[in-house]
C-alpha cells in the first residue's frame, strides 16, 4: 500500500550506478552506456553496436 503524497521507498539498489552496459557503435565509433534490450547509438541511431 502506498499513497500518492509520499511513496514508500524501496531500495532497488542504487538506481544510478551500473544499470547499463557499455557499447561501441560499429558504424560511427561512438561509445555509450546503453539500457534495455535494444541499444541504439545516440549519435547515428545505428543498432549495429557491440558490447565492450
Amino acid at each position, binding site marked *: 500500500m502506498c499513497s*500518492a503524497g509520499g*511513496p514508500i521507498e524501496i531500495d532497488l539498489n*542504487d*538506481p544510478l*550506478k551500473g544499470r547499463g552496459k557499455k557499447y561501441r557503435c560499429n558504424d560511427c565509433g561512438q561509445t555509450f552506456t*546503453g539500457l534495455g534490450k535494444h541499444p541504439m547509438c*545516440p549519435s547515428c541511431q545505428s*543498432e549495429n553496436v557491440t558490447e565492450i
Partner: protein
Amino acid sequence: MPRTIRIPFTGGDPVLIRGRSSFLLVARATEKFPLIIETDTEELVQGVYPNDLIVVSAPEGGEVVPALYLLEMVATHHLPVIALGKSHPASRRISYVVSAAEKIEMRCDIRRGTHPEQHLLCTADEFAGMILFANENNLVIENCREEISVSQLVWELSITEVQQKSFD
C-alpha cells in the same frame, strides 16, 4: 479482481487514462530514436522503436496540459529525461514522470524520478501493478484493478512568431 482491458489505439493521438485521483497519458512512438537518460554521474541511452509506448504519469493528478507538453518533448522532440539520485530532495517536487518502453509496469513503491529503467513508471497506488503495451491496434492494460475512464485526446500545438518591426 484484476482484469485485462483493450482500448482502440490506432491514431497518433494520445490516450488519457483517469483513475480516482491520478491519470496517465499514453502515446505510441512513431519513429525510432535514442532516448537519452541523464543522471548525475553518467549518460544512459535506450533505443525507442515504433509502437513502443511513451507514458506520462501524474501520481497526484493535476492539469493534463503539462503532461501533454512532457509527452510532446519526449515523443516528438526526443529531449533527454533526467533520473535523480534516490535521496535527491527534488523527487518530492516532481508532479509528472515519463517512461518510454515496449512494455511499462506501473509502480507505487519507488521514488519519483529516481530510476532510469524505462520499463517501470511511478504512479498512484490505484494504478500499481498495471502493465501497458501496444498490441496491433490496441492499447492493452493488464492487471487493471480500479475503475478507469479512457479518453482520446485531440490536440495541436501551434505557434505564430510575430516579428518586431522596431526596437526602442
